[in-house]
């Protein structure tokens, strides 16, 4: 006789929050402050063990909530350095033109700190556990919520690998860019490479940040890099100063990465070994962690109605990542959204109508101005013109022509280029074409830049060494990704686009293999998930069944 366990017998919490990043932490803290019984489920062995960001954390003056509203001690306890200088480096070969974008960085900014996610998120998680425990809930690590629990077709809870399903009146998917819950609900997909960025990052040991950058311990610097650094791949680089390390990375448009068949780790190396960085990196280069993540492009995928039944999406899971030209903001929006979702549920509960939480959350995202930042109207209006290949061609040809170059010089002589770059208004309408990412900065550097005199001695580790330095707890015999179609046509792109795979490298996740059967030679793609860093790139560019590994399994980032 088959025993059917009635779902009524499952554990129930008023709210279950999946994911203990800044979005989940903010949601849970606010829920707990409202006296709502809140359970937080985090799949990492520790909060932050799965999380990667550039990462600058902003507190915006106009934001409905900032992270220090919810966690007042965070800056003293868990962030790195406040970023007090912000530059854009336009690069063409070895010529560089620097613009000071500190005023853009400071626009609407109460403060902005560099952060390392393992340190910050694990600190947040401890606070969240203390606060949610008082409500009868708490925070558990090592639990992988793998999908939604439904009853009569309606979402009523979550299912997990390690524990029995959990019912809740509010389900918060703060499970990141590869949210399994958002996908289960049909709210997000993994279809179009043009909707995503891929970020790769090296955390570099640097005990003497103050000396190298000429700053005080309570100061920090950010540099952005654009131009011809990345072999025509649309994207930009960044360098942020942490307390005693640097975060150096690059963010690429995934469709451009796919189109160029570029290897992200090599593009990162192009930045690391550029002579411009030699003055900061010096002779000694010690890379402590290599990491990567997929980044949603909020202009295209920020969900305008991120809820369904009792489920709400928060942060990357809802596509709430603002990457518009030199403005790169994600965590702050996740915090705002999370707190708004909690507020929405608290009100809905008080009005005896908990089902209305999703609609209230959606309204709050709009009324608070968060949605306007994520999906700027100006970009949407200009996109049909700005992103047409013809327009790009015309603008690019004009820019690179003698007339364009003279014009540029004239504009620069009165400081107009720097001012335009510094305009948040302009940034929010930048089209996703090669013009702003490659052509313009290259021309700027060629016409206005000065050659860099330093020589780089940096030798970045090989991909094999980078993978070797990472910590894994492999779920042997239970791979979390399955290739549905191993043909080169369907999945071959993963070999180059996956940040831990490369053509001619046998130790990565994806490789191309030649199989000969009965004299027939076939090229196929094979997959070994052992070195996977769970970025989700292959879910977009290859034909896979993709889910996260079980709780505590897979890669464990120590910096993030």
């Amino acid at each position, binding site marked *: 006789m088959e025993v059917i366990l009635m779902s009524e017998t499952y*554990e129930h919490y008023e709210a279950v929050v999946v994911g203990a990043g800044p979005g989940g932490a903010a949601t849970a803290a606010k829920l707990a402050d409202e006296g709502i019984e809140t359970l937080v489920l985090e799949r990492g062995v520790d909060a932050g063990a799965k999380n990667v960001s550039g990462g600058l954390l902003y507190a915006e003056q106009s934001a409905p909530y900032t992270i220090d509203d919810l966690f007042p001690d965070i800056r003293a306890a868990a962030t790195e350095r406040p970023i007090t200088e912000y530059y854009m480096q336009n690069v063409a070969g070895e010529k560089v033109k620097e613009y000071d974008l500190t005023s853009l960085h400071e626009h609407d900014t109460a403060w902005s700190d560099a952060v390392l996610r393992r340190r910050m998120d694990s600190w947040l998680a401890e606070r969240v*556990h203390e606060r949610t425990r008082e409500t009868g809930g708490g925070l558990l690590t090592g*639990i992988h919520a793998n999908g939604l629990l439904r009853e009569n077709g309606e979402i009523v809870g979550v299912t997990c690998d390690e*524990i029995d399903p959990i019912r809740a009146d509010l389900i918060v998917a703060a499970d990141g860019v590869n949210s399994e819950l958002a996908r289960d609900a049909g709210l997000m997909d993994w279809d179009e490479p043009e909707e995503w960025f891929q970020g790769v990052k090296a955390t570099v040991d640097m005990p003497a940040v103050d000396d190298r950058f000429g700053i005080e311990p309570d100061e920090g610097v950010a540099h952005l890099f654009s131009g011809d650094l990345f072999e025509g791949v649309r994207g930009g680089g960044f360098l942020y100063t942490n307390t005693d390390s640097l975060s150096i990375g690059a963010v690429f448009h995934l469709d451009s990465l796919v189109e160029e068949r570029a290897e992200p780790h090599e593009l990162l190396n192009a930045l690391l070994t550029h002579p411009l960085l030699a003055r900061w990196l010096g002779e000694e280069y010690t890379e402590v962690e290599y990491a990567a993540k997929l980044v949603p492009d909020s202009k295209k995928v920020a969900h305008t109605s991120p809820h369904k039944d009792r489920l709400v999406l928060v942060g990357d899971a809802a596509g709430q990542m603002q990457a518009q030209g030199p403005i790169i903001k994600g965590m702050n929006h996740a915090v705002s959204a999370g707190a708004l979702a909690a507020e929405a549920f608290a009100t809905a509960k008080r009005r005896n109508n908990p089902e209305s939480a999703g609609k209230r959350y959606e309204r709050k995202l709009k009324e608070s101005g968060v949605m306007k930042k994520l999906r700027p109207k100006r970009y949407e209006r200009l996109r049909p013109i700005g992103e047409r290949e013809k327009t790009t061609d015309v603008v690019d040809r004009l820019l690179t022509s003698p007339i364009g170059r003279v014009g540029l010089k004239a504009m620069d002589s009165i400081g107009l280029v720097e001012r335009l770059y510094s305009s948040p208004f302009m940034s929010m309408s930048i089209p996703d074409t090669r013009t702003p990412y490659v052509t313009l900065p290259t021309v700027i550097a060629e016409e206005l830049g000065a050659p860099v005199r330093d020589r780089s001695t940096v030798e970045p580790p090989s991909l094999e060494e980078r993978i070797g330095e990472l910590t894994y707890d492999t779920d042997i015999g239970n791979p979390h990704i399955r290739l549905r179609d191993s043909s080169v046509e369907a999945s071959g792109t993963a070999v180059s686009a996956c940040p831990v795979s490369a053509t001619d490298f046998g130790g990565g996740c994806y490789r191309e293999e030649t199989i000969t059967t009965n004299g027939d030679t076939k090229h196929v793609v094979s997959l070994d998930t052992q070195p996977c860093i769970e970025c989700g790139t292959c879910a977009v560019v290859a034909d896979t069944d993709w889910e996260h590994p079980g709780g505590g399994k897979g890669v464990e980032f120590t910096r993030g």
Partner: protein
Amino acid sequence: MSIHSIVLTKGVPDFREGQVSFDEDGHLERGKTPTVMNPNDEHALRGALQTKVRHSGRVSVMSMGPPGYGDVLQEAMESVYADDLYLLSDRELAASDTWATAITLATGLEKLGVPDLVFAGFKTADGETGHTGPQTCWALDLPMITHVVSIDVDEAERIVRAQRLVEGDVEEIETVETELPAFIVVDPEFDTSYRTAGERLVLKDLRERTTDRAEEHEQHLTTWDHEDLNLDPDYIGLDGSPTIVSSVDPIPKPPAERDATVVDPTDEDGMSEVFEEMQPLAAGGD
């Protein structure tokens, strides 16, 4: 309501490779071999912890042995988040057999006040008799369930329901129940998965509360000697042990099944002999 459980544990020589040390005659060198908690007791501890997580209450751990067993009890405190530790320790208790040990443990348990559940592991790694648990149980006159793989306590009815392996056979499981207090011998197959968030949160609370306490485990350790237990030296220790050990034979090493010839790879003649020897194997083709 809550349940008071007590776990009986023993310190045993660490028989793991690299830890254990034998003399030339094959006798265990106690001085050179570290003492650890009997591996099977871990299952008893897991059982007690699960009961505590599900029903709250208190877990005590008791052992009999030299003062150095405090470390073993600390290990127990760390793994089971025990509330208090008891060590029955006295020169008069030295060289006890299972009978004398059982009498001593039972007296300790009575002094403590017989708890709701007494947990014991399935035999120790050194004696391997499997007698001490049942004999202690007999001395206390408690109902006993052995080879237990899962338990379910009904606090209101004061009943424990247990699933046990029949004849130690994993394939066959029976469910039995008895009144509290009861004696539970836990099988290595005991299932301690925590399938609810609530249980895991309690476990996390216990871990947080106990980490610091285990550091200062001495403050939670009570040591009783034979006078504290009001035991007559004639009935405990070597004098109280009816077991006679006639002789101890070291276990002979198993004979090597194959003969090995050592060949220096730089020795050309030797190597060509190896190849000649291997020739017929290569020719076989499978």
